[in-house]
Every structure is written in structure tokens, then in C-alpha cells.
């Protein structure tokens, strides 16, 4: 059964940007706003989402995805203690788990697509290997995360390019010449001259004009959202703007800016305490930042208020652009 489930994948290339934290809080925020959310840890080999949620010794883990007798995928869902939020753990992963083959990745992807929820959030591992990129590309909404450091911006750019080129590669699996241009996993035979979307398009125009439209559609449909994490100043925010320009210039991808999260000790404290900061203090500045990001993703205006230990949600759905028409 394939439902119209919204899959949001949070990636970013480099490790340590805060992908898991942001992904977890996006899931919590959406769950608190009333959606049925499943949070899934796909950072095989280094899963840690259960720790962020404060779940000790998860009942299920990485190995359970590949058991033949798992008939009901819902049975792998772990209760988080937060209304509407279930969790699929990747815990119990052994060394080498990150290197599972494509067949197993497809099995997991199939598992994800069969989950019943309004939204599924995927926490991706670091890097740009296909195991990560493939999870990123199955999502309906792509979120890329960066931090203001230049190295982080570079990695995020590389991640977006890898995701785009992987999309093209998967779309033209039967065409070996196109594969050589977009899949550089075999450097000896790869055509490394087409390293930007413009150069790739030139090759398509020259060699594969009949596939050009499909190629253009792939590029056009790829609209990742950008979140800048650990922002300390306006100057830091500009790095996000620079990344968007860079992506537009070299990849012709219209990425959107979803928002930012400020650097705060309260975030670090919440990780140490294993209490999500959105629940601990929904009116803190990082929580407000997160609410704006959720608002941008869900096209709503959210506001969380904590009174007497209970969290209240104010939700206003934004009108679509139909009014302008």
C-alpha cells in the first residue's frame, strides 16, 4: 500500500552539523501540531536518535529491518512518550552497517514507504555515499542542513550536487553514456568534465536531445530546503544565502531557505539531559526558530506555549497562492 505520505529527509554531507537534533525536533514539532509522525534513524552504523529522545535500550533496531518474519512493519515502531510520534530505531548497528548493499537499502526504502503516517522524517547519516543519497532522494521534501563554516557550506553544496546527479543517474539507468557523466563512482571510466548542471545540459543538448526535457524536469523538481544551524550573527546567515546562490549558479537548483537555528547552550543542555528543547522550553529562541522552519515545511504558522507543564499549540494554516491567481 503506497499512501500519500510526506517523507522529509534531513541531510547535509558533513557530520556534526546537527542533523539528528534538527530532524528529531522537526518530528516532535510536527507531532505536537497534530500530525502522525514517524521518525526514522537511517544513520546506520552511528545511530543516536534514540539517545536524543531518551529511549533506553530500544525494543527494536537495525537488524529487525532485514528479518524475514517481519510481516507487520508497524510492529517496529517504538513509542516515544510524545503524542503522535513513533520512532524507528537504527540502534544495535554493528561496525560495517553503513556499508549495506543496494538490495538491503531498497528493502529499507520499501519499509519506509509502507509506513502509515502523515509524515515520516528520515535522519540521514553523514557523507555523500549512495546509501545516504538514496534515502535523501526518496523523500518528498528534502532538507539540507549547513552551519556557517565554509567547510560546511562546501560539503552541503557537494551533497546537493550528489543528490541531483544521483537523481539523474537513477532516471537514466539504461543509458551508460549518461551514467558516465553523472556517476563518478568509477573514476577510470567517468566523464568528469560535466561537473555542473550547465555543463551537463550542454552534453544532453549535444548528445541526448531527446532526454533533455526529462533532464530539465529532474533539475526543476529538485527543490531542497536549506536550514542554517548554529547561527551566531547576521553574517552567519549570509553564508546560507551564499550557498543558495552557489547552488543556483552551478546546479540551477532553486533551493529555498527554510530558516535558521541560533547557537545556544540550551540546545546542548537539552541533549545532555535527553529532553528535547522544544518540549523543555518551547518559547526559547531556538524553539521559535524551529517553529518557523516547521511552519515553512508545513505551510502553517505554529506557536508553542508551555503553561503549567503542558504544551499548547497555536496553528494557523497559511493560504495558498491560489488567492493571488
Amino acid at each position: 500500500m503506497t499512501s500519500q505520505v510526506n517523507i522529509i529527509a534531513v541531510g547535509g554531507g558533513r557530520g556534526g552539523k546537527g542533523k539528528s537534533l534538527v530532524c528529531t525536533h522537526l518530528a516532535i514539532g510536527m507531532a505536537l501540531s497534530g500530525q502522525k509522525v514517524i521518525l526514522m534513524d537511517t544513520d546506520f552504523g552511528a545511530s543516536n536518535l534514540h539517545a536524543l529522545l531518551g529511549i533506553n535500550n530500544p525494543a527494536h533496531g537495525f537488524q529487525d529491518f532485514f528479518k524475514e518474519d517481519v510481516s507487520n512493519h508497524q510492529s517496529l515502531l517504538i513509542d516515544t512518550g510524545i503524542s503522535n510520534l513513533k520512532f524507528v530505531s537504527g540502534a544495535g548497528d554493528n561496525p560495517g552497517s553503513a556499508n549495506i548493499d543496494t538490495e538491503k537499502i531498497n528493502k529499507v526504502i520499501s519499509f519506509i514507504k509502507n509506513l502509515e503516517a502523515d509524515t515520516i522524517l528520515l535522519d540521514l547519516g553523514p557523507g555523500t555515499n549512495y546509501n545516504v543519497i538514496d534515502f535523501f532522494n526518496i523523500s518528498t521534501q528534502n532538507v539540507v542542513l549547513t552551519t556557517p563554516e565554509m567547510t560546511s557550506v562546501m560539503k552541503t553544496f557537494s551533497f546537493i550536487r550528489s543528490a541531483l546527479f544521483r537523481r539523474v543517474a537513477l532516471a537514466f539507468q539504461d543509458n551508460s553514456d549518461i551514467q558516465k557523466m553523472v556517476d563518478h563512482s568509477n573514476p577510470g571510466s567517468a566523464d568528469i568534465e560535466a561537473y555542473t548542471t550547465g555543463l551537463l545540459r550542454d552534453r544532453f543538448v549535444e548528445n541526448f536531445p531527446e532526454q533533455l526535457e526529462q533532464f530539465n524536469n529532474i533539475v526543476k523538481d529538485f527543490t531542497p530546503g536549506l536550514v542554517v544551524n548554529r547561527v551566531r550573527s547576521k553574517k552567519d546567515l549570509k553564508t546560507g544565502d551564499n550557498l543558495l546562490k552557489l547552488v543556483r549558479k552551478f546546479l540551477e537548483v532553486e533551493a529555498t531557505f527554510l530558516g535558521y537555528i541560533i547557537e545556544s547552550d540550551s540546545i546542548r543542555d537539552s541533549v545532555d539531559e535527553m529532553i528535547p528543547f522544544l518540549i523543555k522550553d518551547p518559547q526559547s529562541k531556538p524553539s521559535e526558530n524551529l517553529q518557523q522552519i516547521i511552519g515553512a515545511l508545513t505551510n502553517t504558522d505554529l506557536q508553542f506555549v508551555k503553561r503549567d507543564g503542558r504544551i499548547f499549540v497555536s496553528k494557523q494554516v497559511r493560504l495558498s497562492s491560489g488567492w493571488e491567481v
Partner: protein
Amino acid sequence: MIEQYLQVALEFVKEIWFQLDSQFGLEGTEAFKFIHPYLLQLEDNPAYMGIAFAALVLVPFGLYKVRSISREREQKLDDLMEEMEEDEGELDENDPSRLRRPDDEETATALDDDEEGDKPLFEMEEEDPPPYVQILEKLDAEENEDELHVDTQKVMGEDKVIEPVSSELAELQIDKDLSEFDSDPVESDSPHDQTIQELQEDGQLTELEGVLSPDDPFANYSELDDDEQNRAIQELQGEMESTINKLTKQMESTPETTSTIKDLGDIRIGDVATIDEEFTLDEEFPLEEPLETSEPAPEPLSLEALDLANEIEPAIENIEPAIKEIETKLPPFQPVPERDYVIEDRPDRQVDSLINRLKYFQENLDTRFHHDEKRELTSAPKAVDIAEEHRFVEQQSFATKKAPVDNKKYMEVLESFIFLKDQNKHK
């Protein structure tokens, strides 16, 4: 039975807790989360619960008790201090006998206090003043024109004359009183012994610090015969008189000093007050010498110190507000007890206090001066080091690259990091 009581008590506590929790949402607080596991342990183990209850009662009670004891002691100390100050206030600060033994005032006062509760040992009749008082009176009579003594008599009055000015002198009297039980009272009351006693004490008085010199003719008094004793007494008396005259002259003479402490009036305290902003070596150096001249003032106040203080006073009065202002700006010092004294009507304490304050002021300025001096000294070679390092870096062809502020340059740098040297077709 006890269990039932405990059960009722627990239910009562629970009820209170539920009410409080519903009112204030205590369960969500950090503090509750922290103590929650401990509370569970308490609930499970009656021994822990008992210890907890005992601790809840005993610890605050112990704290209260400790606090109250210390408060009582402080109160007693304050009372004693007040009493001592009152007694001191009644004495003439210009009395030379006080100047000779400033440290003994407290002992004397303490002795006075003791006399009330321990009369058999320390009882002294006013009609029969002690021998040292007699000798002081004799000296006063001889030097009627001595201004200091006139003032002393005026201020101290007749009653205060009998008070011991020195604890050691008083102790001698005590010893004498005690010895009355052992020795023949006729001997101790003889005029000869009395005179010896007087001279002993006066001999001590000639030494400002109370230390007898090794060649004191009175040192081996008991071993001398009558003639030698008389001669020693006369020598001592003469020496004492000359010393007193010398001291009196010294006090009467107008101080025409060459001390540079007068220059304090010229010190631009305003500049020093803003030392943080406008600290310069030129402003600091003049302070060094004048203030140092005030430093050697001895702690037991001597006449020289008094003279010095008389000189300092006008200058100090000028800089007093500035010092206060500086003190508020400067980092906290160790407390200066002298500051608490009433300065106006106690010249010796005033001088003492002011000298101490000047000392602290000087120390602080010195500290700052040396600190800044060090900083300057260390910063100068540092600059050289940086230059050296810079040269070294240049030699190694390293350049300190910083992320450019300009967006265009930032993008260029970013592109240069992303693409290879040959990958320039996109441009």
C-alpha cells in the same frame, strides 16, 4: 498502630503535594525531577525516611544554634568594644603616658572590667592612689607650664588619674597586692620601696617601646647597696626628666619639615582617579616618593609619627574626597579596621587611620603601576615577537587567510575550494 499513623501522615503529605502540584505544576520543575529518585528511595526505606526527618529537624536547628552562638559572641564583642571606646574617649589622647604605651589601654580597660567582678584581687581605693600615679603627679607639679599636662588634667579629671595607663604597671600593682599575702606589709609599704617602684615604672616609661636597655642602672637594682641604689635612682630620675623635657620640646616645636609629603596637595588626584583610562607613568612616578615617606610611620604611634601626621593632615584633608572616590573605583582591598574609627576627635587614631589608608592607596597604586609596567614590558617584546613570527611566516610562504567579508570574494573563495584548477569551463 505506628503504621496507621504513618499511613495517615503519608496520605496527608500526598494530598498537600497534589494540591501544590496542581496549583504550581511542581512536577515539571527541574528541582523535583532531581530529587524524585531520592524521594522514591525514602518512601521505600523507613530508615532513610527517619534519617531524612531527623536531618530536616536537626540540620536547621543546628544551623540556628550555631548562628545564635556566633551572634551572641559578636554582640558581646561589640559591647566590649563599645565599652573600651567609651573609656578611651574619656582619656586625653595627648597624654604622653598614653603615647608611651598605646597597646596597654585595652589591657587596662580589661583590668578595669575585671575589677568589678574580682574585687579581692584588684580592689584599689581612690584615696590611696598607686605609686606611679604619685610620681606622675609629682612630675606634673614640677612642670606646671607643660601644656600637655595641663590639657591632660583638664580632660582626664581627677577620677581618671587613678586609672592605670599601662597594663604592666597595673600588673606590678597586682603583683604587689598579691605579694601582700606573702610578704611583710610594712616592707612593701615603706617609702623606700615605694620610690623604687615609682622609679622602676618611670624607667620603663623612658623607653617608648617598654624594653629596658641592658645597661640600665636599675637593672640590677636588688643587688646594689643603699648608696648605689640611691645613685641609680637619681640617675634614672634625671634621665627621665631629660627625656620628658625632650619630648615636650619636640611636641611644642612647630614642624618645619622638609618632607615631600606636603607635595601631596599638589598631586592631581583627579588624574589618578581616572587611572584606568588615563594611566601614565608620568603621573604615577611623583606619587612614589611622597607616599613612601609616610610609610615608615611606626604602628605603635610615636611622637615622630604624630609630627608626621600633623604635616600629613592638611594634605590628607585635601585628598580625602578623592581617596574615597578612588576607593570606590579600585578593586576591593582587605578591610582596614582603622577606617571605622571616629577621626574627628582622635588625632592619633586619625593619623593612624589616614596613614593606613595612604599605605593601601600607595600599595594599590604600586600594584597597578607594576602591573601596567609589566604589561608594557611584556607587550614590547611581544610586538617584536609578532614581527619576527610574521617574517618567519612570510619566509615559509604561508599567508594568513581569512574568510572574506565581501560576498563576491567569499563566493570566489568558495568556488576555488569546490572546483579543481582545470575545472574552469563553467566560467
